[in-house]
C-alpha cells in the first residue's frame, strides 16, 4: 500500500510540475508598446512601394474574421496585420521595400450589403479596425517591417467619413429611399418622371441638400446621425459627430465643377468633411499624426486630395512634418491621390508647403494604359513619344524643389508611379491577359524616375476587373515565389539596389517614337538614368512596347544617341548579359524583341 500511496503522491507532483512551465506573467510584447520614433528612410527614390489591402493579403488570425464571407469580394475576407507580419519574408523576397497598408481606423461595418473591408469608411479616427487587429499588432507590424528594413506607409482619408448620417429630406425622422413617378403616361400627353431619391446619398444641390414636402421645398434637410451600433454606424466623438463638421451638399455629380468637387459627398454616401473649419482641420491633423506617433509610420498615402481645399494641405502637411520632426521623425513621406488625368491638377498638390508627392495618375492613363495595356491593339496603342512628352512636363507641372521639412526630394523627382491600384481594373484585365505587356510595363515602372508602386497580386498575375474584382484574395495563391512575374519584379528590384542610376539618376529620354505599327522603331522608348543624385552611376533602359515585332532604336537615319559614348554596355536584364559597344558618336542601334526590354549599364560598373 505504501507503494500505491507513493505513486499517488508522485503523480500529484508530476501534475504540479506539468503546470509550472505555464506559469508566467502575460505581457504585451515590447514591439507592441510605444515605439521610439525614428527616421527609417534615406532617399524615398530608393524605395519600392507595395500596396496591400490588408483584408486581402493574408489571414494570420481567424479570431478577427467577423462576418467574413469567403469568395464574396464586396465583403470581408479575413486578412489582417498578423497575416502581413507572417508574410514579410514573401514581401522581402519580392524586392519591394515599403508597405502601403489600407486604412487602419475603425469603420462603419457595412452599407447596402457591401462591407468596409477596404477601410475607407471611417467612423472613429482614434480606434483601430478590429478586423485587422489592435494597436499592439499594428505596432508589431511596423516594428517587424523596420527590422527587415521595410517601411510602412498608411492610407488616410481626410476628405470624408463613412456614411454616418442621412439627410432627412422628407422630415419624417428615418432614412428613406424613395422611387417616385411612373414614366410616360400613355395617351395622356404627359409624363410622370421616375425619380429616385435616397436620403443616404442624395444628389448634389448647390443650396445644400433640401428638404421637401408635397407643397415644395422646405429648406435645408436636417442631418441626422444614425445610431446603429450593430454595424458601428454611430457618430464619433467631437466635431465630426456633429452636423457642423460636414458640408451637406449631397453627392458629387460633376467632378469638373470645383464647388461640387470640394463640397460634395463622395459617391457611396461618404460624407464630405468641412475641412475649412479650423476645429475640423485641427482634428484631422491631430488624429492622423497620432497614428504616426503611435506606430512609427514612415508616411501617409492620402486619399481623395482633390476634394479638399489647398489651404488644408498646406496646413496639414506643414503641421504634420513639424510635429513629427520634433520627435525625431524626418523624411515623412506624404503623397496624395487625385484620381484625375489632368497633370496640372496633380502637380498643384505638390506646390510649396503642400505634399511631397502624388500618385502619378496621368502616367497611369497616358503610359500604362495607352502604351502598354493597349499593345495588343495597334489601332488603340499610343506611341512612346507620349511618354517623353508627359515626363517632360514633370518639371513644369510639379514642384521642382523639396518641401521644407519634407522628404528632401523634389516632388517632380519623386512622383509615385503605378500601373494599377485598387481603384482601377488590374493591368492584365485591360491588357486582355497579355503578360508580356505586364512585365514590359513593370520594367518601365521599376526603372523610371520616381517611386515605383506595385499593387499586391501583380506578382501573381492577378487580372481582376473593376472594384471589387481587382481586390482578390492573395492567400489563395499559396504565396508562390517562382512565377515569372514574381521573379521579374524581384530581379528588377535587385537591379535597382545595385545600380543607383536606376533609383536616383535624372532622366534623359534618348529615344521615343510615335510609331506603333510595322515601322522599324515602333514601340521603342529609351531613357538614360544618370546624374542627379546617382553619382557616376549610369543606366540605359530600352523598351519595345510593340507586341507584334522586334524594333530598333533607330528610324532610318535617326538613331538613339547616348550621352555615354565609347563605353561598353551590358544588358543586365538579359541572362546572357550581352554587351553593346557604344561608338564614339554615341549613336547606338539595338534591336529589342517584341515586348521586351534591356537595362544596360557600363561594363566597368557591372556588379555581381
Amino acid at each position, binding site marked *: *500500500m505504501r507503494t*500505491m*500511496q507513493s505513486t*499517488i*503522491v508522485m*503523480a*500529484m507532483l*508530476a*501534475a*504540479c510540475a*506539468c*503546470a509550472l512551465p*505555464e*506559469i*508566467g*506573467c*502575460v*505581457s*504585451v*510584447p515590447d514591439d*507592441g*508598446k*510605444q515605439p521610439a520614433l525614428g527616421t527609417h528612410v534615406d532617399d524615398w527614390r530608393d524605395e519600392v512601394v507595395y500596396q496591400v489591402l490588408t483584408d486581402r493579403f493574408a*489571414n*494570420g*488570425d*481567424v*479570431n478577427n474574421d467577423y*462576418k467574413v*464571407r*469567403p*469568395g*464574396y469580394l464586396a465583403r470581408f475576407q479575413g486578412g489582417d496585420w*498578423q497575416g502581413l507580419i*507572417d508574410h514579410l519574408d514573401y514581401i522581402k523576397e519580392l524586392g519591394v521595400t515599403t508597405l502601403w497598408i489600407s486604412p487602419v481606423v475603425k469603420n462603419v461595418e457595412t452599407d447596402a450589403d457591401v462591407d468596409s473591408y477596404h477601410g475607407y469608411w471611417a467612423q472613429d479616427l482614434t*480606434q483601430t479596425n478590429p478586423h485587422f*487587429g*489592435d*494597436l*499592439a*499588432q499594428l505596432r*508589431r507590424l511596423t516594428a517587424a517591417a523596420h527590422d527587415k528594413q521595410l517601411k510602412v506607409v498608411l492610407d488616410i482619408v481626410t476628405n470624408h467619413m463613412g456614411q454616418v448620417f442621412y439627410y432627412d429630406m422628407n422630415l419624417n425622422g428615418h432614412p428613406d429611399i424613395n422611387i417616385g413617378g411612373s414614366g410616360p403616361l400613355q395617351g395622356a400627353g404627359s409624363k410622370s418622371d421616375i425619380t429616385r431619391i435616397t436620403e443616404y446619398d442624395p444628389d448634389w444641390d448647390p443650396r445644400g441638400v433640401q428638404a421637401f414636402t408635397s407643397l415644395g421645398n422646405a429648406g435645408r434637410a436636417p442631418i441626422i446621425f444614425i445610431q446603429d451600433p450593430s454595424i458601428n454606424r454611430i457618430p464619433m466623438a467631437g466635431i465630426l459627430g456633429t452636423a457642423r463638421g460636414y458640408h451637406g451638399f449631397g453627392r458629387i455629380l460633376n467632378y469638373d465643377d470645383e464647388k461640387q468637387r470640394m463640397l460634395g459627398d463622395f459617391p457611396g454616401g461618404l460624407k464630405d468633411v468641412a475641412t475649412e473649419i479650423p476645429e475640423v482641420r485641427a482634428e484631422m491633423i491631430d488624429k492622423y499624426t497620432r497614428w504616426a506617433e503611435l506606430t512609427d509610420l514612415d508616411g501617409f498615402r492620402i486619399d481623395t486630395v482633390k476634394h479638399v481645399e489647398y489651404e488644408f494641405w498646406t496646413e496639414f502637411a506643414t503641421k504634420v512634418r513639424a510635429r513629427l520632426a520634433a520627435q525625431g521623425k524626418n523624411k515623412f513621406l506624404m503623397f496624395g491621390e487625385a484620381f484625375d488625368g489632368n497633370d496640372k491638377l496633380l502637380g498643384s498638390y505638390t506646390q510649396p508647403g503642400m505634399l511631397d508627392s502624388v500618385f502619378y495618375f496621368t502616367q497611369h492613363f497616358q503610359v500604362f494604359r495607352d502604351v502598354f495595356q493597349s499593345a495588343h491593339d495597334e489601332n488603340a496603342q499610343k506611341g512612346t513619344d507620349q511618354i517623353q512628352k508627359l515626363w517632360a512636363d514633370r518639371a513644369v507641372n510639379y514642384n521642382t524643389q523639396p518641401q521644407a521639412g519634407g522628404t528632401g526630394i523634389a516632388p517632380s523627382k519623386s512622383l509615385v508611379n503605378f500601373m494599377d491600384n485598387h481603384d482601377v481594373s488590374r493591368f492584365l484585365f485591360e491588357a486582355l491577359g497579355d503578360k508580356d505587356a505586364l512585365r514590359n510595363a513593370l520594367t518601365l515602372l521599376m526603372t523610371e524616375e520616381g517611386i515605383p508602386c506595385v499593387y499586391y497580386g501583380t506578382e501573381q498575375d492577378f487580372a481582376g476587373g473593376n472594384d471589387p474584382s481587382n481586390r482578390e484574395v492573395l492567400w489563395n495563391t499559396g504565396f508562390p515565389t517562382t512565377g515569372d512575374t514574381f521573379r521579374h519584379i524581384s530581379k528588377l528590384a535587385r537591379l535597382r539596389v545595385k545600380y543607383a542610376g536606376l533609383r536616383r539618376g535624372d532622366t534623359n529620354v534618348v529615344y521615343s517614337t510615335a510609331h506603333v505599327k510595322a515601322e522599324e522603331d515602333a514601340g521603342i522608348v529609351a531613357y538614360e538614368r544618370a546624374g542627379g543624385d546617382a553619382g557616376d552611376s549610369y543606366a540605359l533602359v530600352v523598351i519595345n512596347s510593340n507586341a507584334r515585332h522586334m524594333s530598333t532604336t533607330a528610324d532610318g537615319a535617326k538613331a538613339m544617341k547616348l550621352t555615354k559614348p565609347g563605353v561598353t554596355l551590358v544588358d543586365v536584364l538579359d541572362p546572357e548579359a550581352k554587351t553593346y559597344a557604344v561608338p564614339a558618336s554615341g549613336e547606338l542601334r539595338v534591336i529589342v524583341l517584341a515586348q521586351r526590354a534591356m537595362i544596360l549599364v557600363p561594363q566597368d560598373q557591372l556588379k555581381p
Partner: protein
Amino acid sequence: MLRPGTPVRRSSSFVIRRALLDLRGASLILSALATVLVPSSASAQTSKSSGPVQLPAPPPPAAVDIAPAAPAPSTPAPTAPDALVTSDTSAPSVPGAPPSAGVRGNEPARVVTETPSAHEGRFEFGSYGRVYAASDLRGGTGRGTNVVAFGPRIVDEGNYAELELRREDKWNERVKGRVVATLALFPPFFHFSGKPEQAIGVRNLYAQGTYDNVTMWAGSRMYRGDDVYLLNWWPLDNQNTVGGGVGAPIYKSTAAPGSSPQYETILQLHAGQQRLDNPYQFQKVPVVAPFGFGTVDVTKLDRPRTIETLKLTQFIRPSGGPGGFKAILYGELHQLSAGTYSDPLTKVDRGLPEDSGWMLGSQLTYFTGKRDTYASLVMRHARGIASYDPLAVPITFALDRTTSGASETQIAISGNYEQEEFSILWAAYVRFFRDGSPAATSTAKYDEGAAVVRPSVFLGEYFGISLEGSYQQRRLATLQPGTNDQLNASVTKVGVIPYFSPAGRGSYKRPQIRLLYVASFRDSATRALYPVEDVFNQRSTEHFLGIGAEWWFNSSSYP
C-alpha cells in the same frame, strides 16, 4: 457545501426517517415473538427452513466524494418471520400461501409464509438557494463588480436556486439505488421582473445504483468535487455532462476496530458528453422535403464534446480519528470530432476540424473533522479544448480553427478555521489562461487571481457578523485603450455582513439571513473594460447594500 471531513449533518427529515425505521423494526420483532409463542409443525418447519440469517457484510462508509449511495439504516433490518394466519373461515389471502384446499371449520390452524420485503424506499427533498435584493445607493440595483473568472461570490453571485427531488431505495444490504432530479431556477424571479416566465435548468436527472461497494450512475448530472465557497468555484473538477460513471473504494485499512478507516483509496471513472446548441457543435438546416411541399430540418452538424474523467482519492487519517488528509489526482480527456456547418451568412459549407484536450490536476486537503475546519491546495493544468469550460464554446482559435496552443493553469488555496465565537474563511487563486490564437496580443490571453478573507464573529448561538475583504486582478495581453500601458484591471472590495443563522454557529451553517454592504473600488483599467456608454466605465466606486438569504439542506449536490 461539500467540505472534506465535514461531519454528517442530520436534517429533520433524516430524524423522522430514523424514527419510522425504528417503529417498523419494533413491529417486526413483535411478529417474530408471536411466531415463537405459537408452536406448530408448520411453524417449526418454517423456522427450520429459515435458520439463522447470514447478513451480508455492511458496506463501507460512503466516501465523501464518491457517487453517493442510499444511506444505510442505523441497524440491520431483522429477518421477518412468516406471517401468522389463524383464520378458519377463509382461504389465506397472503401472497405466497398455497391455494385453498377447502379449509373449513375446526381444521387445525396452519401457518403460511410471506416472503418478507427488505426493501426500503422514500422520497427526499433538498434545496440550495440564494436570493438578494440590493441597491447601488444611486437609485439602481446592486451590481457585480468582478473582473476575474472566479472572483469573490459576494455581490457577484446573483440569485439562484435549486430544487431537488430524490428517491432513495434500499433493496437489501448489498443493493441500493437513488434517482435524482434537480431543477435550477435562474433569475430574474417573478417578484422582481413581473414576468411569470422562469428560466429553469435541469441540473440533475440521473439514476444511481450501488452494489456492495461499487456505485454506478447514468444520466444528466453535475458531477463535482470540493468547492471553494468564497469564490463559488469548483477548482479541480466540475463536470456537467450527460453520461455515466462508476466509483468504488479500492483500498481501505482501519487502525482499530470501530474506528474510521486510516487509509482509504477511492477510484472514480466518468464519461459524458455535451452538445451545446451552438453552430460550433450543432446545427440543423432546412432542406426540401422528400415528399410533398416545404422543407424539413436535417442535422448538418453534430459533434458533441466527449469527456472522460478519472479521479483517484486518497484519505489518510493518521490517528484513525475524524481529522486527516485527502489527496486527489484527477485527469480529464476531451474530444471533439470534425464536422461541417453551413455558414449562416453565406450558406457555404465550412469545415470544423477535430479537436482535443487534456487536463491533469491534484488536490491536497487537511481537515480536522471538527467544525468544518480545513485547508486545501488545488493545482491543475489543461491543454487544448480542455482549457475551456465545457458549457461554453471557445471563441478564439489557432489558425487551423482548433484550440491547439490553448492552455490553462490554476493554483488555488482555501480554508476555514472555527473556534468558539470566531471563524475565518479564506481563499485565493491564480490562473494563467492562454488561448490558441496566433496573435501575440489578445484579450483571451491573461493572468488573473483573487484573494479573499472573511472573518466572522458569532454573537450568541444564532447571530453573527462577518467582514470580507478581497483583491482581484486580471492582466490581459493587450493595451489599455488610450494609454500605453498593459491592461491590468483590479478591484478591491470590503464588506460587512451581519446575519441570523437559525441553524446555529458556523461558517457553513445554513440558512443564513443577511444584511450586507460591500464597496468595490475599481481602477482605471477595470473601468476601461466597459463601453463608454456604461456607467461602469466612469465610476470608480460601487456600492452594494442589500438583504438576502442563502440556504442549503438535504441536497445530494451539497451534502
